[in-house]
């Protein structure tokens, strides 16, 4: 049954990619049908788990031995527990909705069948990642989603920018993947296995240093996949892919794989406080990094991408807090999956109605022309900034509380960063909202300037708006549904463990502070973008704005440190190769050549000189014989 979950989208990918042009007419239906089938199977399994006692909700299915070598057992085995169930529902649920949406979004693309094949491939790989019962199989899924992400970012490969972005995402991800493979090797070295059960249960008998090393390598892997500092640079460029891809892969599911990895390996991090601290630091830094970048981007998708980075920073921060935060990290992950996928689909809908224009400075006043998109995007917006009562409020508030509850100076710093992040989130999301749906209709000026009649933006077809509505409902009620009666906590607690945090100030005070920060952020954004008209050409801006527009110099940093550094390294290696290695080889050849040149002179053709050497040799032999006899 568990294997069927993965088999359905895998079958879809195989049929669509092998089937060829004959399937062009029905390809998108096959893809959507199989994704939904996977979702239905997920629901059945979920009902089955709900019917059991909390302690018996872990199902392990052993499919076959993958690499059976003495002492090295790798099995294809699946583990379905509350954590992976949550992910399965999120992946297949949001995945199916986005399949439906893509039917409309990709309607005019002649390679739509292939697109659905890749989407199904992604679903299969992502399900494999979250269902794997050992780290090696997880790694397989991990690479699979990387491949699907590469193929989908570069889907419009005729655009050089898309091809480059795909390569960039793949390369940056490889750095993280190296971390994961090293972590798996270290695990095998330490525990003699890489299945979850033996590894996570033997943590107590292992030295802290080794665990810290494993933890840091896992963190590196998570940074790569989840676009966390320092491996964050690929996510913004990944927006070159079609918008449904950004919604599914680069907002709701794949980029959260890093959080899954850390929560799944919670036992290791609990025993390695240094690695845990590194996770919180990465989370806190990325949270602010993404938020700052998001404030300056004029490209609607890049602004949302920066926001994704920042929200995953929240999740990492929570995951780094240990049992205080694991549950809330996953809860924020799920609610974020809803509202961020909804926001991206909304952005896609806007682009669809605006001839693929992505610059928000050329939007404005769209709420009259796209009412459904406006309402669903607006609800997603309220959810992400944490408006009280919507899902983002519940999950983010819990994370901020948990950060304060960490205690000591660290708690204050982390809590303060999280609060600041909430204010900045409110600012940049309000900015996106105001620039897109409110204000003057700036697209009209542009069309007139180019001498055409202004093409009126239009609402998207029902096949696109229905998924948006469903996601909007999820982003409104999801948080409340999870939080009331601590449903999500009780559901996930048996897997991740939980310890109740006690913030130094009352929980109500944290909530009040969050709301105040949120209102300040909204007010500042309104003062800047709502009250005044938005200039159609970006003003020069302050130093910080200009830096944020360049992604806080992430690419420049990578260029100077890694590209230049790499060039210098290769150049010096080439120098060593030329002088040292070639020197030895060429020197040996030259000395043999020189020696034989000298020897050749003996062969001069004069019979008498040969005779001299013969006599000399004979004399030597006689002398040697006499000498030996004397001795």
């Amino acid at each position, binding site marked *: 049954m568990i294997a069927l979950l993965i088999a359905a989208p895998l079958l879809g990918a195989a049929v669509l990619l092998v089937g060829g042009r004959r399937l062009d007419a029905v390809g998108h239906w096959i893809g959507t049908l199989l994704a939904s089938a996977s979702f239905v199977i997920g629901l059945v399994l979920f009902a089955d788990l709900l019917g059991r006692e909390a302690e018996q909700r872990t199902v392990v299915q052993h499919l076959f031995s993958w690499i059976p070598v003495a002492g090295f057992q790798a099995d294809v085995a699946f583990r379905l527990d509350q954590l992976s169930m949550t992910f399965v529902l999120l992946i297949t649920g949001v995945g199916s909705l986005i399949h439906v949406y893509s039917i409309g979004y990709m309607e005019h693309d002649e390679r739509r069948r292939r697109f659905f094949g890749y989407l199904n491939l992604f679903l299969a790989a992502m399900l494999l990642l979250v269902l794997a019962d050992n780290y090696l199989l997880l790694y397989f899924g991990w690479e699979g989603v990387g491949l699907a992400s590469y193929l989908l970012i570069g889907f419009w490969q005729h655009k050089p920018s898309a091809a480059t972005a795909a390569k960039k995402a793949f390369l940056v991800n490889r750095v993280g993947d190296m971390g994961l493979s090293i972590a798996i090797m270290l695990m095998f070295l330490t525990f003699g296995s890489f299945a979850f059960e033996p590894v996570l249960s033997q943590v107590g008998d292992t030295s802290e240093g080794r665990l810290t090393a494993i933890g840091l390598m896992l963190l590196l892997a998570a940074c790569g996949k989840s676009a966390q500092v320092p491996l964050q640079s690929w996510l913004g460029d990944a927006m070159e892919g079609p918008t449904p891809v950004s919604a599914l892969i680069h907002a709701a599911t794949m980029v959260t794989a890093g959080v899954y990895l850390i929560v799944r390996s919670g036992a290791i991090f609990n025993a390695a406080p240094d690695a845990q601290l590194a996770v919180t630091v990465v989370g806190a830094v990325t949270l602010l990094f993404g938020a700052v970048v998001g404030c300056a981007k004029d490209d609607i998708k890049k602004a949302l991408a920066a926001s994704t980075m920042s929200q995953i920073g929240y999740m990492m921060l929570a995951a780094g807090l240990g049992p205080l935060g694991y549950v809330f990290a996953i809860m924020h992950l799920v609610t974020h999956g809803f509202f961020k996928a909804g926001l991206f689909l909304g952005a896609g809908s806007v682009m669809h109605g605006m001839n693929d224009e992505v610059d928000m400075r050329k939007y404005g006043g769209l709420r009259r022309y796209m009412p459904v998109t406006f309402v669903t995007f607006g609800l997603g917006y309220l959810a992400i900034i944490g408006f009280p009562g919507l899902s983002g409020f519940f999950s983010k508030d819990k994370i901020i509380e948990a950060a304060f509850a960490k205690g000591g100076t660290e708690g204050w710093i982390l809590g303060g960063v999280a609060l600041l992040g909430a204010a900045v989130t409110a600012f940049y999301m309000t900015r996106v909202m105001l620039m897109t749906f409110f204000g003057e209709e700036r697209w009209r000026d542009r069309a007139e300037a180019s001498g055409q009649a202004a093409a009126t933006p239009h609402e998207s077809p029902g096949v696109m708006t229905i998924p948006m509505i469903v996601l909007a409902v999820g982003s409104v009620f999801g948080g409340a549904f999870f939080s009331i009666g601590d449903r999500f906590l009780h559901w996930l607690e048996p897997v991740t463990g939980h310890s109740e945090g006690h913030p130094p100030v009352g929980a109500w005070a944290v909530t009040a502070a969050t709301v105040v920060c949120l209102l300040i952020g909204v007010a500042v954004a309104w003062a800047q973008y709502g009250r005044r008209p938005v200039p159609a050409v970006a003003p020069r801006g302050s130093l910080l704005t200009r830096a944020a527009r360049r992604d806080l110099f992430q690419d420049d940093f990578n260029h100077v440190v890694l590209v230049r550094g790499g060039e210098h390294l290769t150049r010096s290696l080439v120098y060593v190769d030329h002088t040292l290695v070639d020197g030895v080889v060429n020197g040996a050849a030259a000395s043999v050549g020189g020696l034989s040149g000298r020897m050749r002179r003996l062969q*001069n*053709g*004069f*019979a*008498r000189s040969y005779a*001299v050497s013969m*006599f000399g040799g004979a004399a030597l032999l006689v002398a040697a014989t006499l000498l030996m006899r004397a001795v």
Partner: protein
Amino acid sequence: MNPVNYLYLAALLFTIGATGVLIRRNAIVLFMCIELMLNACNLALVAFSRMHGNLDGQIVAFFTMVVAAAEVVVGLAIIVSLFRSRHSASVDDASLMKL
């Protein structure tokens, strides 16, 4: 019987032959010097044979003479053809395989 005097003579002949090979250029003279060395050896062999009172050394001496005779046949033929092609019997002139 004391072979010392015979051995002195053999060494003297051998030295003369060797020196001749090394310092003379004429192929015929060289040839004769080689014969001289061979015969010095023969003398030593026969002297030792006599000293030991058996015939082994004399048999080897005959063997040497047969080989030397064969060598003379081949060697003189080579020298004649060298002289014909180069108009000289000097071994130094024949330092190259080609003409």
